[in-house]
């Protein structure tokens, strides 16, 4: 029960008017800009006759009543009790949350809670002029608005679009716009796809107490029947969400298909955090057929971590299920476990920073064939790996004369590699490796006459890592990248099963410029020379040979929202072995983003043909009501369009129409090219989506 309405019931009503004619003890006539205030309710009218004997107000309009919730009632004339709790209003119009308007011939107020309107037209559309027809409206013989439950009950409701009746419902219940969480249907979506045919999704929301809810979404289409479900639960120390569906369709007749994704995040005692993300699917093509996700490898993970200023503890268990038709889940590592702890110390006497860390790793393949059989990859089919490694490093920096920033880093790595079910590798090997790096940076700065700032920073690193490569297999470090993040590093392999050995020299130059009128640019160039070439580096890593490719990376940003950034690895013939670029332009009208990637042919990285692709996505607001979005992916090598998407949206104060079309051209044994269309028509005024003032149309007089 809405307590505020209760307790203000017997507050005195204040009546203000230009003129009050006190006829006698029982009758009082107020006229001229009459306003009556009672509790949270304000009433304005041209004339009010207050009859004390029957405690009623006879009110002559135009009447405007505003209640504490912001609901507005307009009427031509009315008779109400002194607390405005009961009474009859003629020619009444109820406006809820400044959005939804219910116009009726007559409205009856009951107990200050119910408003019963008869012969009603309900819409949230702007109506200009007296007899203009709204874009859509619901006409009903009777509508009851329950202010406490915040519900609208329609009897004999007829839905009309531009005054054309579309469908008829004997009874209909809709939430009033101020209702936050209520059981009921959400906005339906029409969906058509070449794989599933034409269909409709109608989500139904069921709140369970204050901390849980369940949304069931039947999806009925010509080629499939599916029930989607989403269960959410909030705990005091975390939350859980489960999404899934159960389907049967003509693509795999007679088979129950479906998927289940569950993810949760929990705060444990002593600052630990636990996340888990479970992904299951009934068959390899289901997720693409139903357009759930484009992922071609499903990873289910459990992740525990604690982050403190000087300590990082991480532990994770990952299970992979590959959906790629050429990959066999038996010979791929499907269970991967890691745990690591790192601590940072700042010894006062010694100075600098001491870092100690320890890590354990393991990955497992179901197969136990100790050699590489006829599967798609060249790795040993059944190989399982275990590793224990520890690292101690000390680093310090000084500022030498002339502003040179010098740094020394010393590392000691202890690694033990255990390999099972692999005839080609050493079973168990342990190594101690040490490394040292001396880094010199000499940044110069300049402030120009108009305030422009420029910084030039030459870099140099001399590094040495002892030892040779132990005979353990390389399962994890087969894809090495080279960018500004590891230009100055002692080992660029991504995992501890491989390290760089021998002497290296890395040199680079960084240039940054900031112009006073709001644009800025940056450029980084770098190269690495090494004593002996490392045969484990692939061609596209750019680190092959005794002199690496040139690393060139640049950035440009302008105040008007344009940003460009690119990075490339130039080989000795000045050809890119790898190039990536990103451009973005966003302002209040549009948000455009483009990406480019080029990867050279590299059999060592299972890339038998070059990979070069443009992708573009943009949103553009054409006018106050219309906005469009598009996304493209074009494969430059095969000269084919990979996917294209188009979106169109119309939105005004009472309706939001979203239309989307996507066409995917990729095809393989468990993947078919598909075209999907989506149409959602949302009637505004029944959800708490706010009144979207920025989309409100106005009447041109």
């Amino acid at each position, binding site marked *: 029960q809405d307590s505020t309405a209760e307790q203000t019931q017997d507050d005195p009503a204040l009546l203000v008017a230009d003129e009050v004619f006190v006829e006698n003890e029982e009758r009082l006539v107020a006229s001229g800009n009459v306003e009556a205030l009672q509790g949270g309710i304000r009433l304005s009218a041209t004339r009010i006759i207050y009859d004390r004997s029957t405690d009623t107000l006879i009110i002559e309009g135009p009447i405007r009543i505003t209640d504490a919730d912001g609901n507005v009632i307009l009427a031509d004339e009315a008779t109400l009790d002194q607390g405005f709790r009961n009474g009859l209003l003629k020619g009444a119009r109820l406006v809820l949350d400044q959005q939804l308007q219910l116009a009726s011939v007559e409205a009856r107020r009951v107990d200050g809670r119910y408003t019963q309107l008869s012969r009603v037209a309900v819409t949230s559309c702007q109506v200009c002029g007296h007899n203009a027809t709204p874009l859509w409206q619901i006409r009903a013989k009777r509508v009851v608005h329950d202010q406490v439950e915040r519900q609208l009950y329609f009897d004999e409701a007829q839905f009309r679009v531009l005054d054309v009746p579309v469908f008829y419902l004997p009874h209909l219940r809709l939430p009033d716009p101020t209702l936050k969480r209520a059981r009921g249907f959400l906005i339906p979506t029409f969906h058509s796809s070449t794989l599933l045919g034409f269909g409709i999704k109608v989500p139904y929301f069921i709140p369970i107490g204050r901390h849980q809810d369940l949304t069931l979404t039947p999806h009925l289409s010509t080629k499939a029947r599916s029930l989607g479900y989403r269960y959410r639960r909030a705990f005091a120390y975390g939350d859980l969400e489960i999404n899934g569906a159960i389907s049967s369709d003509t693509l795999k007749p007679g088979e129950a298909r479906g998927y289940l994704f569950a993810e949760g995040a929990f705060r444990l005692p002593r600052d630990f955090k636990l996340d888990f993300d479970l992904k299951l699917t009934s068959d390899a093509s289901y997720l*693409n057929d139903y357009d759930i996700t*484009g*992922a*071609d*490898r499903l990873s289910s993970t459990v992740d525990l971590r604690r*982050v403190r*200023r000087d300590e*990082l503890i*991480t532990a994770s268990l990952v299970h992979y299920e590959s959906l*790629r038709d*050429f990959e066999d889940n038996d010979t*791929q*590592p499907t269970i*991967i476990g890691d745990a690591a702890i790192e601590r940072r110390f700042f010894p006062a006497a010694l100075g600098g920073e001491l870092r100690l860390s320890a890590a354990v790793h393991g990955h497992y393949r179901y197969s136990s064939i100790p050699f590489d059989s006829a599967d798609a*990859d060249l*790795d040993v089919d059944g190989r399982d790996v275990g590793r224990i490694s520890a690292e101690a490093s000390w*680093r310090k920096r000084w*500022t030498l004369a*002339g*502003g*040179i920033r010098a740094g020394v880093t010393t590392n000691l790595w202890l690694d033990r590699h255990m390999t099972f079910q692999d005839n080609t590798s050493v079973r168990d090997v342990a190594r101690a490796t040490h490394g040292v790096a001396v880094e010199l940076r000499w*940044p*110069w*700065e*300049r402030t*120009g006459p108009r305030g422009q*700032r*420029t*910084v030039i*920073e030459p870099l140099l690193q001399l590094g040495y890592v002892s030892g040779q490569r132990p005979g353990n297999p390389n*399962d*994890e470090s*087969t*894809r090495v*990248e080279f*960018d*500004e*993040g590891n230009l100055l590093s002692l080992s660029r392999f*991504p*995992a501890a099963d491989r390290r760089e050995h021998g002497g290296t020299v890395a040199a680079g130059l960084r240039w*940054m410029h*900031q112009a006073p009128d709001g644009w800025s640019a940056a450029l980084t160039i770098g190269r690495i020379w090494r004593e002996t070439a490392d045969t484990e580096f692939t061609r596209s890593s750019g680190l092959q040979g005794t002199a690496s490719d040139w690393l060139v990376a640049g*950035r440009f940003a302008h105040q008007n929202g344009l940003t460009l*950034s690119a990075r490339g690895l130039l080989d000795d013939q000045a050809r890119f072995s790898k190039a*990536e670029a*990103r451009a973005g332009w966003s302002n209040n009208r549009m948000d455009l983003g483009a*990406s480019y*990637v080029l*990867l050279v042919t590299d059999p060592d990285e*299972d*890339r038998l043909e070059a*990979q070069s*692709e443009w992708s573009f996505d943009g949103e553009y607001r054409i006018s106050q009501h219309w906005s469009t979005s598009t996304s493209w992916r074009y494969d430059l090598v095969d000269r084919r369009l*990979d*996917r294209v998407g188009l979106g169109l949206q119309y939105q005004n104060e009472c309706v939001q129409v979203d239309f989307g079309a996507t066409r*995917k051209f*990729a*095809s*393989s044994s468990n*993947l078919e090219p598909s075209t999907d269309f989506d149409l959602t028509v949302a009637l505004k005024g029944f959800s708490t989506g706010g009144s979207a003032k920025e989309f409100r149309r106005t009447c041109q007089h």
Partner: protein
Amino acid sequence: CGFTPAYAPGGSGQQLLGRIALDEPKTKNGYRFGRRFEERLGRSSGPFRLSVKIQVDRQGLGSTSAGATTRFRFVGRALYSLRDVGDPETVLLEGRTNAFTGYSTTGSTVATLAAQRDAEERLMIILADQVIDQLLIDAPRLSASAADQ
């Protein structure tokens, strides 16, 4: 030609070296960003305090005709603001920077996972270096505001 060494006495670098404290990190990325920042400008407790908000998105690229996504890209955005430790209300310097790192998924599952984790770690090093560059460029505005306090 007008260039002076940034870390020589009186250079902008001296405004920053050993004078910036970081907030307690809450995420792995925050920890790695802070580790790199303190490695280059030293750990200190003031007089300045740097607050950084890091957002990392992942984008799939390089799709083959068979529908496999062969390349992923982490796009990192860092929004930072520098304040005086004693006066948390007024912002002395603020700015934003962004960077990206990539990794391929043509390898085995465990190779892709290692490449993904390494890409995110490299992204934090690049973002930290770029924030330090930006602070070095804007450092004169720092001494200007300190002067007129």
